[in-house]
């Protein structure tokens, strides 16, 4: 069972990355316009180059 010494920290670390990513999305207002964001991806406006 010595593998637990490695596995538990690794799983906690990976979960922590997910948690931090969620924090990042919340703090940058990425849930302000869920409907608009799901539609924007359908427009071809910035397909060739990113929005300046």
């Amino acid at each position, binding site marked *: 069972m010595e593998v637990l010494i490695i596995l538990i920290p690794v799983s906690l670390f990976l979960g922590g990355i997910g948690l931090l990513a969620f*924090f990042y999305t*919340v*703090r940058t207002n990425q849930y302000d316009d869920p409907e608009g964001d799901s539609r924007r991806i359908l427009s071809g406006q910035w397909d060739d180059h990113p929005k300046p």
Partner: protein
Amino acid sequence: MTAELRPPTAAACPGCLAAPAEAAEAALPDARIALSLPTIHCQTCIVDVESVLNAHPGVREARVNLTLKRAMIEADPDIRAADLIPALEKLGYEAHELDPGVLSSTASDRAGRELLMRLAVAGFAMMNVMLLSVSVWSGAEGATRDLFHWISAAIALPAIAFSAQPFFRNAWGGLSSRRLNMDVPISLAILLALATSLWETSLSGEHAYFDAALALTFFLLAGRYLDHRTRAIARSAAEELAALEVPRAIRIRDDGEEEEVAVAELKVGDRIRIRPGARMPVDGEIVEGRSELDRSLLTGETLPVAAEPGQQVSAGEVNLTGPLVIRATAVGEDTSLHRMADLVAIAESGRSRYTSLADQAAKLYAPGVHILSALSFVGWYLYTWDMRTALNIAAAVLIITCPCALGLAVPAVTTAASGRLFRKGLLIKNATALERLAQVDTVVFDKTGTLTTGELQPVNLEDHARSDVEIALALAEASSHPLSRAIAAAAREAGLQPAAVTEVTEVPGFGTEGLYRGQRVRLGRADWVGAAQGAQTTAWLAIGDRTPIPFAFSDRLRPGAAEAVRALREAGKEVLLISGDVAPAVESLARQVGIGKWVAEARPEDKAARVQSLSEEGRKILMVGDGLNDTAALAAAHVSISPATALDAARVASDIVLLGTDLSPIADACTTARRATKRIRENFRIATIYNVIAVPLAVAGLATPLIAALAMSASSITVSLNALRAR
């Protein structure tokens, strides 16, 4: 919950340090112009609107929010919303200016974001600790179990220190003001569970409740978050209604120049130009111009009154025909509109006596839980003289009885029911409005603007000769007065063509006149054409020397008014009509929609007094009204509804806002509210059943962390599923 969730201040959260600084927060720092775009619905709309706005000279950046159907525009200071709206209307998108100052939802939602982060931390920690606990429950022993318990403790302690802050703060607030709220048993259960688990872990014990403490925090936070979100949605929609009325006025400077200023900047003595169709921003006295005024929002009377220099006007009246210049006599807080707010404040004090179902439950629950837990501690201590066993059992009792499902019971149902009503066009502004709506047995309607649209329609067009109506049509089309517009629309609908009337001119405040086959023809007020003014709203047509002929008007009924009244009566509620309008108009309308009891010529105080006296008889009153004269009555009633077209003051005083023009959702709202309250009571019963089963086990010392986790999760999930039936 007893206490409201206070917006958490800058919290010492671990994630705040790790996450990047608020970059997107400052994306549009001084979005100066906000536009409401009610008709946008797809990706093409977004691209169209954004490219048109961005192509406009002076616009720096424009971004559309499809969820809120809104565009925020950052532009040079000299750009006005009025410059941008025509460009959008050319593309076929309806656009209205919003007052960006009123749209503060982003600031208030900081609280929602904090809550969401706490929820995320609690959820993350709960899942990890639960995984570790499962292996303990399935038989990990010795050093492995101790290791797992220590790791659980290392996760649970910081997570709870961060996530459970709202409960600790509320509990402390309640205790320091000597009240026992729902957060006291919650905080005590969490803290006691942590303390006994730590003690057990340090002694290599078998039972640790780290997972239970975290699950408790997570489920309760979920309830709080649902509650917050429901209220945030209602608040943002209410803000949008308020923001649609951009408070601007045209001030005439001493040098005769006109400038557009915010209403807040007006001072006593300022001269203000009021265009036809505009609302008076302040109280004042007319110094120039003649017109007619629509005072229906203040008094409920549909009959326009003549306005001439020297006359007093009140804020909220609408100027109908000619441009007016007024001198302000009272501004801001001193206007008659604001003085009405005092009346509202007095009336409102009665309503605050209502205790919500959650509070009633908490009042029974909180002391019971503490007594039960204390008794089992004392009992086991006297029985075994072992502090450890007694404390363990007391903690188990607190955790199992903890109002986890109770915390979810009310918010889950309210969210589901509010969402259902929002889709039907009803905005629930107040947290307890649904519960109060469910108790209603008497409904009081206002007439003008509530049961009717406030738009007039001619009633006796067919009684007149065709040629006369054609002359009236020709004269009516030259004016923008509501009565003229109503005649023109009705005559056009009847397929009539305007007669050849020449030299048509509008005389503001009186009517229109012209020449028809050498004869002078006039359409307007009774005294102007030489007729006697009756009680009913009437416009008169005078042709040469003939006796003037009357065009009588009645208020147009709101769609769904009769259906709403019928449905409410069928549901066994008494329906009353109280109006400030004259008796014949009220009587005819009452008969039209089928209301038996009506009161006419009621002043604002009369309305409020009548509502209060009915309440004292023990009736639960739903007041539906829109005008300033209804505000006090709206606040005095048990629960109140106002249409979106109502004055801002009336909307603020009411619990529920009707977003569409149709009245029929009102009857449906009562049914939904009754069903929602039934679900809440059911949820309380479900939570109690779980307790009745689990508590004897806990008191008997048979509860294990596994049983606690099962009882808690199962009851929370059943309660949430039951709440979904209210959708």
